[in-house]
């Protein structure tokens, strides 16, 4: 087995709030990143809805995960991608996306990187493990 850090991708394909999958996936992201593995996260299909700005679960009485999502990069979760096709299907653009933290070097707020399904597919092919959550 190679000695270089393992490449792990977490895929998030479910909509937020209607189920806990997204919230609990974010908890996994923090832990996996802290273990020194090379983590990428791909939001695909309904998963891109989790990246929409302006979410507010207050009236639902649900704590939600928006604060955690806004701090992904603070916790070393920096390779975060959103599938272009999934966004297009849902009439979402980069303007609609939430900030997931700050760029380590520039300290500018950053969002998930919108990329093609083909690019995500190529990334998937390079992973040692894919954690579908």
């Amino acid at each position: 087995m190679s000695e270089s850090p393992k490449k792990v991708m977490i895929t998030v394909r479910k909509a937020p709030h209607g189920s806990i999958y997204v919230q609990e996936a974010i908890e996994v992201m923090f832990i996996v990143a802290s273990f020194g593995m090379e983590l990428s996260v791909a939001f695909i299909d309904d998963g891109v809805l989790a990246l929409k700005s302006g979410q507010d679960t207050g009236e639902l009485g649900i704590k939600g995960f928006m604060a955690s999502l806004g701090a992904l990069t603070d916790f070393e979760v920096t390779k975060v991608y959103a599938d272009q096709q999934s966004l297009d299907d849902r009439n979402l653009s980069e303007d609609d996306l939430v900030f997931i933290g700050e760029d380590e070097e520039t300290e500018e707020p950053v969002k998930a990187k919108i990329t093609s399904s083909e690019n995500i597919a190529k990334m998937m092919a390079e992973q040692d493990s894919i954690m579908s959550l």
Partner: protein
Amino acid sequence: MKLTILILEGPYNHQASDSAYQLIQASLASGHEIHGVFFYHDGVYNVNKQMDPPQDDRHIANRWAELGKSGIDIVVCIAAAKRRGITDEVLVPDTRISGLGQLAKMTMESDRLVVFGD
């Protein structure tokens, strides 16, 4: 081949637990190693000793206890377990509660991660 199996759904409600069990049995029969089984989301319900299915149907928690007894690390995520009221008191024997770090560790140390869910 060392496998880590991640199970994301509860027993009976979804087939995930059953499919995972079938893969584990086939892997062991082929001489492969199950490095660990990790339960997340509703998967934590799989090891609840209080489950009481009909006599003529499979007892899912007991299956996990048997695998645990044979030496396989059967782990339930503490955060997911706490949310769902799964505590040490209700665990079947030879299974344990631990942190998400265990999932990370198992994944790092395995050749394959296979996920069963909904």
